[in-house]
Structures are given as C-alpha cells and as structure tokens.
C-alpha cells in the first residue's frame, strides 16, 4: 500500500536519526555559515530579523531542511527555487506544475513524498526538518505535526499561508471571514516567504509576473457590463453539495475573473448545502474543482459534471441548462502560485467573447 511503501523508502534511505542527528545539525551549521559568507540572500537578512505570520515572529534565517504540507505549499517552495532544500512533501491535490515535474522525483531522491496525508509526527521528525510550510489548516495542531510553539521549541521554524491563520496557535479557525483572503494576501505571503527562504528576488519576480497576468485579464475584461453569477461546488458522492464560499481566495479569484460569487453569504470551503439551495441561487456558471491526488487533473471533475447534467432536479439551473459547467483544479483555487493563471483561465470561461 502506498503509505507503507513511502515509509519504507524513507527508512532505507536514512540511517537511524539519533546517532546522526547531532552530526548532521553540526554539518548543516557549518554549511550555512559557509554559504552565508557568499550569499547575497543571507546579507539581506541580518541575524535577528523576523517576519510576522499569524501573530508569530518567524526568523528570516534561510532554513536548510524544508517540509511542505499541502499542494500549494509544495509548489511555492519550487516556485521560489528553494526545492534543493525540500526534504519532505505531503500531499498533492493535482499533478504538480509541469515546470517543476522534472525536479519532483520522490521515487529517486528527496523530498520524501506522502501522497494521502500529513506524515505522523515521528516520521516527520525523522526527516530532521528545520522549517515547515503549510498551505492549509490542520498541520500546526496537536493532531498534526504539533503547534507552532512546540515546533519552535524543537528549533523548527514554521509558516502558514495567512488566509488560514487560526484564532490561536494550535486552534482551528472559528471566524473564517476575519482573515484577508484577497490576492494581495497571497502576494504578501510570497514576499514574506521569499525573505524567510532567502529568495527575495525570486519572490519579487514571481509577484510581478502574477500581477501582470491578473492585470492582463483585467484589461481584457475592461468594462464588462454583465458579470455572470458563479457557483464553485463539489459533490462528494451523495445527494448534497459542498460549496466554496466567501472568506476564501476562491471568491477573490471568481471576482477578479469578472464573475459574482452566488454563495457570498456562506463562509469557508466545502460547506454543505442541499440541492434545493443550488436551484434557488440559479448560478449562470458552475465551476467544479478536481481533487485529490498527483494523478488527478481537471478531468477528475468530469464525473461530478456528468452527474449534474443528468440530474433532473437541476436541469433548469442556468449553468446546467446552458452547458456552462466547467472543470478546474483544486490546486489553482488554493492560495499560491497558480492563482493568477486561475484568474486568467476562469475569465476565459466566464467571458469567452473577450478573449
């Protein structure tokens, strides 16, 4: 089975941690000190400088062994060019972006890849990380890898995409609408991560590219009079429907792409509603994000789309009637490097006449 295989691969590739840990830590320190002499990144981040993330001060000292949890976190590490230090990754919602696929080879070398869930805490510590980047809630809890305070005590730095900042360290998010879920917050995270990972120039360039892509889409959409009413939903196998609502970057993307979120009064991701509510909201376009697995492309949403087309109860919903139900990917509507391209792609779905 997949998780067992991954576990074995990691075990055989690594000597027992206890005996090597101190030595490796010492070696890492030496290497870091050496690289600090010549690296402009390290000069930009003098000792003691920190970045504030979810109310926690994160030292802006480039880490040597990074673990990334969730798809958007993994791709962020690659996009900033810090993947040579990525030692662990869990887990992909869709295939990794083609420009990173050549370097993401978990069957041959680091990072160790956990395809279905966050690794256990023991497994995680075996990787001997000094930094964890999380793209979604759950990682920094006692059930996950530990609270951020606990990780700090172990000398492990952490960063959580700020849209998912919890109400307190180790807690869940009880007031979803309170966080900034705009594209600006994504750009801010990228900039912060650039400083922490010692890749500020890469971060600046990435944000500039994303802004340009969004601006180009906005330009094409200039002066659209009619903004289609958009629902982003999934249907996990039984009658009811899960909604991607407000308080989520998905809504910011829909709006930047020239649409109106029909579920703007429902907060958060995957909120359960009845089919009747979808009929009542009468969306003109329905987007179905495909998930989850390194081999699940947009076609993973086809089954849900086919069910919607065949379901007599929703035959009058404008999006179904006019055949405007589209597959997208879960990865592109999670805060991260794909968001700008998602705006461009969804803008084409909402306003094909403009492109």
């Amino acid at each position, binding site marked *: 089975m997949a998780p067992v295989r991954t576990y074995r691969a990691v075990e055989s590739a690594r000597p027992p941690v206890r005996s090597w840990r101190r030595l490796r830590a010492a070696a890492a320190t030496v290497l870091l000190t050496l690289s600090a002499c010549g690296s402009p990144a390290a000069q930009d981040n003098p000792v003691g400088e920190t970045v504030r993330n979810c109310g926690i001060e994160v030292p802006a000292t480039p880490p040597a062994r990074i673990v990334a949890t969730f798809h958007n976190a993994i791709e962020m590490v690659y996009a900033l060019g810090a993947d040579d230090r990525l030692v662990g990754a869990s*887990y992909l919602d869709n295939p990794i972006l083609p420009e990173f696929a050549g370097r993401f080879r978990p069957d041959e070398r680091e990072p160790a890849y956990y395809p*279905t869930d966050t690794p256990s805490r023991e497994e995680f510590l075996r990787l001997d990380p000094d930094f964890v980047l999380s793209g979604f809630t759950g990682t920094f809890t006692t059930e996950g890898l530990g609270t951020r305070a606990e990780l700090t005590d172990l000398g492990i730095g952490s960063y959580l995409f700020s849209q998912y900042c919890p109400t307190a360290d180790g807690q869940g998010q009880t007031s979803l609408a309170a966080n900034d879920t705009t594209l600006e917050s994504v750009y801010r995270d990228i900039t912060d991560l650039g400083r922490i990972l010692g890749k500020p120039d890469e971060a600046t360039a990435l944000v500039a590219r994303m802004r340009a892509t969004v601006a180009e889409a906005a330009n094409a959409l200039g002066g659209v009079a009619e903004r289609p009413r958009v629902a982003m939903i999934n249907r996990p196998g*039984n*009658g*009811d429907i899960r909604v991607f609502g407000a308080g989520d970057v998905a809504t910011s993307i829909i709006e930047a792409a020239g649409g109106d979120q029909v579920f703007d009064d429902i907060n958060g991701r995957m909120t*359960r*509603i009845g089919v*009747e509510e979808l009929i009542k909201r009468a969306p003109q376009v329905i987007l179905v994000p495909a998930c989850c697995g390194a081999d699940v492309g947009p076609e993973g949403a086809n*089954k849900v789309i086919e069910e919607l087309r065949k379901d007599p109860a929703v035959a009058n919903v404008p999006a179904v009637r006019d055949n405007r139900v589209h597959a997208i990917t879960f990865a592109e509507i999670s805060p991260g490097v794909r968001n700008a391209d998602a705006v461009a792609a969804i803008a084409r779905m909402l306003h094909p006449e403009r492109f």
Partner: protein
Amino acid sequence: MVVLAATCLASVLIGNETIALGDVLATWRRPDGSDAQRIVAFLRVPRTLVGLLAGAALGLAGALMQGLTRNPLAGPEVLAVNAGAALAVVAAIAGLGLTTLGGYIWFAFLGAAVAGALVYFLAAAGHGGPTPVKLALAGAALTATLAGLTTAVTLLDVSTFTVYRFWSVGALTSAEMSSIGVAALFVAAGAALAIGSTRTLNGLALGEDVARSLGQRIIAGKLVAVAAAVLLAGSAVALAGPIAFVGLTVPHMARAFGGTDYRWILPWSAVLAPIVLLAADILGRLLARPQELQVGIVTAVIGAPVFIALVRGRRLARL
C-alpha cells in the same frame, strides 16, 4: 396515521423554499418543468419516501430487537447490522473504488445481512440456543470487531473516505429513486415477518420457560424475528445510513401508546418512527439555513436527551 400523513405533507412543502400545495398537486396534473415542480418531484418526494421507509424499518427493527433480547436499551445496532453495513461500504469504496451511493447501497445491505446472520448463529451455537443475553453479547462482540476493521481501513487512506464519512452520519437525501423501490420491497417483507413474530415476542416477554410451556416453538420464532430485524435494519441503513436513536427510542414511545402487547407495539413503532425521522429532517432543513443539517445529526442531538429521560424513567423496568 393522520399525524403521519401531515408530517409527510409538511416534508414535501417545507424546505429551503416553501412550496404551495397547488404547485405540489400541479406537479402531476400539469407538469411544466418549473423549478418548484422539479424540487417536488426529484428532491422532496424521494426524501420523504426514504424517511417513511427508513423510519418504519428503524421503528420495527428497534421494537423487534428489544423484544428479542428483552433489553430496553437494545436498538437495531445490537445485531451488529450497522457495523456490518459500514464495513461493507468501506470495503466497496476501498476495493472497488465506488463513489456513488447507487453502487454501495447493495454492499450496505449485504454487510448488514451477513453480520446479522453471523450474530444469530454465534448466539445459537452452544448450550441453550440463542438466548437474549447471548444475542446481545455476540452482537456487541461482532460490532466491536467490525468497527475496528472499518476504522483500520479508513485510517489507511483518509482522503478517499470523505464519501463514507458523510454516509456514516445518516441522511435522507442520498438514495436514488430506483433503489427506493427495491428497498420498499425489502421493508415490506421485513414488516410481514415482524407481524408474524408478534406471538414469539409476546411469549418471550413472559420469559422463555413460560413461552415454551405455552407450546411455542421458541427457536423457529426467534429465527423469524431475527430475519425480520436484519431485513428492516439493513434496508434502513442502506437507504439512509446508520441513523442513531430512532430505533432505540421510538419503541418506548410506542409502549406509551400501545401498552405491552407487541401486536400494538409494532404498528405504533412503524407509524411513530417515520414521524420522528421526517420531523427531524424538516428541522434539519430549517435550523441552519442556507446550510442543511443531516438528519442523523438532528436525531442524535434530539435523541440523546430523550434517551437519558427514558433511562431515568421507571417504565423501562417493565420489559
């Protein structure tokens, strides 16, 4: 009966958007394909039918189980029927990659039947045949075993079991029309067997020795009653998932109306349980608008206090 009819009507009319009685009637007399008519025909009527069938099945199965085991706290889950259905569903999702309910309703039924049969034969083996205590013990043991296996499989691969997690709460919205028809046949067969076992249940209520001295064929009678309970509980779990508390509490309500005679307790249970289930479903639609609460959550939240009240009440001791 009148209350039941009223509840069914309310279940068709009340929801996200209240639908006028005229529109409901027009759905069949003058179909025009409007949203209101589609909601009635494809959403509200099916879920009301599921509520009726699953409710009646749960009520009857609960009453049968309490009579068979002479245990006032017995429910359909005592025969390990729910645990068997859950394991079969999980195995179907893991092994065959099924993700729609249409596919796994049959696995739920199969798992329920196998688990029920296994419990009966475990209890029947050895000295004295299937006594109430042995039935309850075998059921509890098998439930623990099956639940452990289910947990093991779901923990191996958390992300693919989203479907299972939703199913395991219990909802009236999952079943498709075609499966409702088939399940109706099973419920009818189970109900017929249940009616056929009233004499056994009444005899058992007097104690096994008394029943035997009155000339009853205890073993055969129990077999019929267990078969009925498995058919009914299996249908309910296949239609709506493992819904808690209805099968446990409704027979006690039925005793309040029908006394101690199972010729009355069974029909009362069959009528009261759908009322409770549909009322809980209607509440679930209204309480959290625009979201919906699954009926299993509502019955658990409302059922728990009722259950505690029952345990504290004196009427229970008379079983």
